[in-house]
């Protein structure tokens, strides 16, 4: 019961935040200098074409009326026409989002998995060489921008060693598995097409790794510090003193409390992944929503800009709610404490 209240409050709060965000986004997309309609149809189109498009996009109405139309349509899942791809932005997003989701998902798995693993190893072998190694690596991982990783990986693994492909989701000769989820790896698995699955994974490695590095380093650091902190806690000493085997303590009684900060950061790192994807997708030519978004920004495609930010906002908020739920599941202190509904 309490969890439900907790989630409900989070959702109500989120709706409010999204509403505010929509205003911010709308303002951003409309203060743009120049005539988006003219930009859309090109310099050589006659004026009447531009005027028609302005009419169609309600650009001649006062700003608040435009906002009303925009919000009304957005609530119906209609973000207008992209000025670049010339079709429904919603369709574009449907098409490009799975690629980013797949990328971010893999980055998330690498981030969480490798980060927690490294952090655990580091904590267990505190002050040994492996710990120092992990610490140095994670520090560098934290301060190095994802696009620098992307460039370095591209140069090293893609070009110099020629191990991995440097662009796209799938090799040119392969055809895509039938779309079920939009995630090529999953679709290939469902279709039983292992060659495609391997190929897609092979394409995923570099961009996912470039995206994950920062978060992974972060996870490793957090895991290490909470875990080595918790290792000295009395309850661990107490559990040991009561004869519970070391294995069980490590795997159960130490891991769970140690994961709480890690998991709460995972949500934020996931969000960071989404923003870093803006550059990484560009570098690896990954046909995702971030590359779509940045192209929209560079081409002043206002409907697409607004939609992409809004979608990312929603994803960000949903991920944060999920993380909060997981954290609440892990940590009764949050779940049961009164008055911490937000």
């Amino acid at each position, binding site marked *: 019961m309490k969890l439900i209240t907790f989630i409900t409050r989070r959702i109500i*709060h989120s709706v*409010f*935040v*999204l509403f*505010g*965000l929509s205003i*911010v*986004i709308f303002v*951003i*997309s409309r*203060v*743009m*200098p120049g005539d988006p309609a003219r930009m859309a149809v090109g310099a050589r189109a006659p004026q009447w074409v531009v005027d028609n498009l302005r009419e169609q996009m309600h650009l001649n109405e006062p700003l608040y009326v435009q906002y009303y139309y925009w919000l009304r349509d957005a609530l119906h899942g209609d973000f207008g026409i992209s000025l670049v791809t010339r079709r429904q932005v919603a369709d574009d997003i449907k098409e490009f989002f799975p690629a980013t989701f797949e990328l971010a998902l893999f980055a998330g798995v690498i981030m969480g998995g490798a980060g927690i693993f490294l952090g655990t190893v580091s904590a267990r072998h505190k002050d040994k060489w492996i710990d120092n190694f992990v610490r140095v690596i994670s*520090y*560098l*991982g*934290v*301060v*190095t*921008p*994802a*696009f*620098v*990783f992307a*460039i*370095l990986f*591209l*140069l090293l693994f893609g*070009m*110099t060693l020629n191990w991995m492909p440097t662009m796209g989701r799938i090799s040119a000769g392969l055809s895509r598995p039938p779309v079920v989820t939009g995630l090529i790896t999953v679709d290939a698995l469902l279709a039983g097409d292992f060659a495609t699955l391997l190929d897609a994974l092979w394409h995923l490695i570099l961009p996912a790794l470039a995206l994950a*590095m*920062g*978060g992974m*380093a*972060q996870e490793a650091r*957090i895991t290490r510090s909470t875990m080595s902190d918790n290792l000295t806690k009395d309850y661990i000493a107490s559990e040991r003193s009561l004869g519970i085997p070391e294995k069980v303590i490590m795997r159960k009684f130490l891991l769970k409390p140690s994961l709480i900060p890690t998991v709460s*950061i995972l949500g*934020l*790192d996931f*969000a*960071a*992944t*989404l*923003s*870093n994807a*803006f*550059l990484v997708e*560009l570098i690896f030519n990954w046909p995702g929503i971030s590359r779509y*978004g*940045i192209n929209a*920004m*560079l081409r*002043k495609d*206002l409907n697409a*800009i607004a939609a992409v*930010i809004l979608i*990312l*906002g929603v994803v*960000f*908020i949903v991920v944060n709610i999920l993380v909060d739920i997981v954290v609440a599941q892990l940590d009764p202190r949050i779940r049961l404490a009164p008055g911490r509904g937000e």
Partner: protein
Amino acid sequence: MPSLTPESDWLQEEVNNVTAQANSLTLPKSKTMENIGRSWYKFSRNPMSIVGLCTVLLVVFLAVFAPLVAPYPEHAGAFVDFANASRPPCGRYLLGTDVVGRDILSRIFFGFRFSLTMGVVVLALVVPPGVTLGLIAGYNQGTWLDTIIMRLTDIFLAVPPLVLALAICSVLTPNLFNAMLAVSLMWWPWYTRLVYGLASTLRNEFFVSSAEAIGAGKAHIIFREILPNCISPIFTKMSLDMGWVILIGSALSFVGLGVQPPKPGLGTMVADGAKYLPDQWWISVFPALAIVVVVLGFNLLGDGLRDMFAAEEV
């Protein structure tokens, strides 16, 4: 911390918040020489903090005196020397030259200028309003003022800052100033959040209630009683944020929305050089490493400061 966003930074802040708050509460207010000496001792105990400090000082030095220390200061702007274009690193050009024959090393030194300008200006724009709002909201916790301010921060924090900064930049004319403006617009909520947390605890402290009891004005309480006790976490965060702002700035210029050519923005140099990979790898790799060095420096420094403030009480 994830490379391009500071948010995990605030989370770490959250994680450490309890301790940070406790520390600032017990911080002695007097700032005697002895205290400074002791702080320095604590700071200098960790060699990494010293490395950070030295890196930062070096970068600042190189940036400030770039026209003097750069081997070819004229290469920082519009300059062509096609005879020496795309030279790999050599004795004359330590880090090589770019496709029009400009010395990468000199351009990196000047690139530091833009990076640091970005960091300093953004923090200067962000900290005063961010902190003030945080103080006001924290002091007036539970009132409509608190609600409005904090909900506003929620809205701005609902999207990764790079995304919104990119969007704002893209609708404005791309240049350094607009990039700074965009990042600033995204950044203030972090400070509001941080200070809000501190202030809402501090307002229940004894010294605040006693100031209230003797009839001190709100402004006095907020700025003279509460603010001084928030200084050390703010300071730590600023140092860390210098790194993150520079990082975001470089990301913006990477996509062409920050420093404009021929001015040498570090991110711009990386992006431009990426077109010449892998043969002229030095054009992008060295500026990329330069970004890493700057961010690393500020992070080590920030961590050192945090440890120093945290150790204060021990």
